[in-house]
């Protein structure tokens, strides 16, 4: 099945009571598949045919406040339209799960993948997890529901547009019974309930606001541990173990290629192809928010140099992952020379030979201080 089908299936298995989605390429087959599920016996959900993405997330906020489990999916421009409400959902501490099918941001119109859409939302208070394969998409959506409901923050599960959303590949489907055991019904502690009337979200003074944000940061920190324990539980039940950061290398690899999303898959294929000749390894970033600084430093141990491949660009600054990675390694024992590379923007294909040329070039490069390097075509 495709990544989109995996996402829709995971959403179905998780049994949300409310789904609100607005079509946008390349997310559309998620919205369509859910419409089919919702119209049949297999899914008992209210499918709101909303008229914009802003309304989609607004409807999810409302749905979540009732105590229901909710789900939505979008992409690029749609996620951008949700921007204000992503802040809102996080501030309102709502466990909304949102699948974002990464796609480059207009203007001009572009359908290919890059990560500017989701990374532009990195300061909203939502968690962000990046997937490489269809299996990861399915599993991560289920993990996301459990994690969101534990930490009370929204989670954006990201998958590359077309390269993952539309690639059909083998995916193992967990049994509904097992999913129910892993992910029981949501028990919302805070909700709008006439039996226990409360007011949420009213005006606060500066001190209270600051405390709430501090609390949010503490909960984000705790989310790192929570993520690991939920992944362990998932492994026990389904036999697949996920980590915040994953390493893929032969024994003596000393150059790390650090990246996220499907690009990690191409890096894996390259590493397999070149064997131990090139001494490269992959450090795959799955979690981006909260930023897995500790696990990243662990993963970097043993590498002498790193290349960060950002499929994104913060214009005027550079690659976003590389900035955060440099920051996490700063003034630590793991601070190694790091070259920041921008590649694959707009969905430009990155082939193993691009990686090979990049690796050769960086090996020869003495000065790694230059701001960012553009991957050659």
């Amino acid at each position, binding site marked *: 099945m*495709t990544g989109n089908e995996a996402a829709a299936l995971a959403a179905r298995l998780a049994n949300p009571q409310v789904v609100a989605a607005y079509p946008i390429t390349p997310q559309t087959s998620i919205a369509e598949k859910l419409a089919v599920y919702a119209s049949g016996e297999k899914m008992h959900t209210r499918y709101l045919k909303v008229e914009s993405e802003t309304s989609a997330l607004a409807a999810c906020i409302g749905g979540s406040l009732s105590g229901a489990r909710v789900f939505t999916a979008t992409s690029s421009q749609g996620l951008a339209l949700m921007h204000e409400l992503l802040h809102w959902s996080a501030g309102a501490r709502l466990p909304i799960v949102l699948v974002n099918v990464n796609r480059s941001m207009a203007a001009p119109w572009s359908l290919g993948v890059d990560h500017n859409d989701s990374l532009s939302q990195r300061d909203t208070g939502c968690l962000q997890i990046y997937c490489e394969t269809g299996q990861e998409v399915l599993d991560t959506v289920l993990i996301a529901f459990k994690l969101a409901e534990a930490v009370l923050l929204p989670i954006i599960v990201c998958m*590359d547009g*077309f390269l993952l959303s*539309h*690639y059909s*590949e083998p995916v193992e489907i967990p049994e509904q019974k097992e999913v129910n055991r892993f992910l029981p019904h949501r028990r919302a502690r805070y909700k709008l309930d006439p039996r226990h009337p409360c007011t949420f979200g009213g005006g606060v003074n500066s001190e209270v606001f600051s405390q709430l944000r501090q609390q949010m940061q503490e909960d984000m920190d705790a989310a790192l541990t929570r993520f690991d324990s939920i992944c362990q539980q998932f492994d026990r039940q389904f036999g697949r173990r996920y980590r915040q950061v994953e390493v893929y290398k032969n024994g003596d690899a000393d150059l790390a290629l650090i990246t996220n999303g499907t690009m990690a898959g191409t890096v894996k294929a390259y590493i397999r192809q070149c064997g131990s000749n090139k001494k490269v390894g992959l450090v795959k970033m799955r979690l981006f928010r909260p930023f897995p600084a500790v696990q990243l430093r662990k993963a970097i141990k043993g590498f002498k140099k790193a290349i960060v491949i950002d499929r994104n660009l913060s214009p005027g600054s550079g690659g976003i992952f590389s900035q955060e990675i440099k920051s996490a390694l700063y003034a630590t024992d793991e601070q190694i020379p790091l070259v920041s590379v921008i590649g694959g923007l707009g969905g430009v294909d990155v082939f193993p030979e691009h990686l090979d040329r990049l690796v050769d070039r960086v090996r020869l490069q003495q000065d790694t201080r230059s701001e960012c390097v553009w991957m050659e075509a």
Partner: protein
Amino acid sequence: MIEVKISGRGGQGAVLASQILAAAFFETGMWVQSFPSFGAERRGAPVSAFLRADRDEITLRCGVQHPDWIVLFDPSMLDNPLVTGGVSEKTSIVINCFQPISNVLPFHYRNLFQVDATAIAEGLNLKTTSFSIVNTAMVGAFAGASGLVEINRLVKIIRDLVPIKKEENAAAARHAYESVQEISDD
């Protein structure tokens, strides 16, 4: 790893063809990846679908640069760069054509196969108002030309995956499997 490109016009069923072949390879225990070309897909516009199959897990995520096989539904697309892009000396091609194709091709293919899938499809009344539905015939032809897919398995998958006219589509595949011919260089 085998890489196959299936090219046709939007609405001719190239994507379904790649899914059928993917399922066939998957059933033999191979890992598969199948995906369409991306971009505006208007009816009648050139469209390609791709398939990778390998013994081990395929982690590669990018376009198919140099296909081992091209399965071409519409001979009018023969010199379209969308079809010919990436042709190398290892590329074999199966073309739907009723006229004998010889050395009029702009490229030298490793192996050249031909089948009149349009006639097969029309003979079984497999058509819409716009096109003859040649996709199932063409997957049958691919099976016959490449020897990579067993025809009985393919026919069973067609019956499972094709939404309508299951028997006719299965018959089209079998017929094309039997009638696909290699065209030699002389």
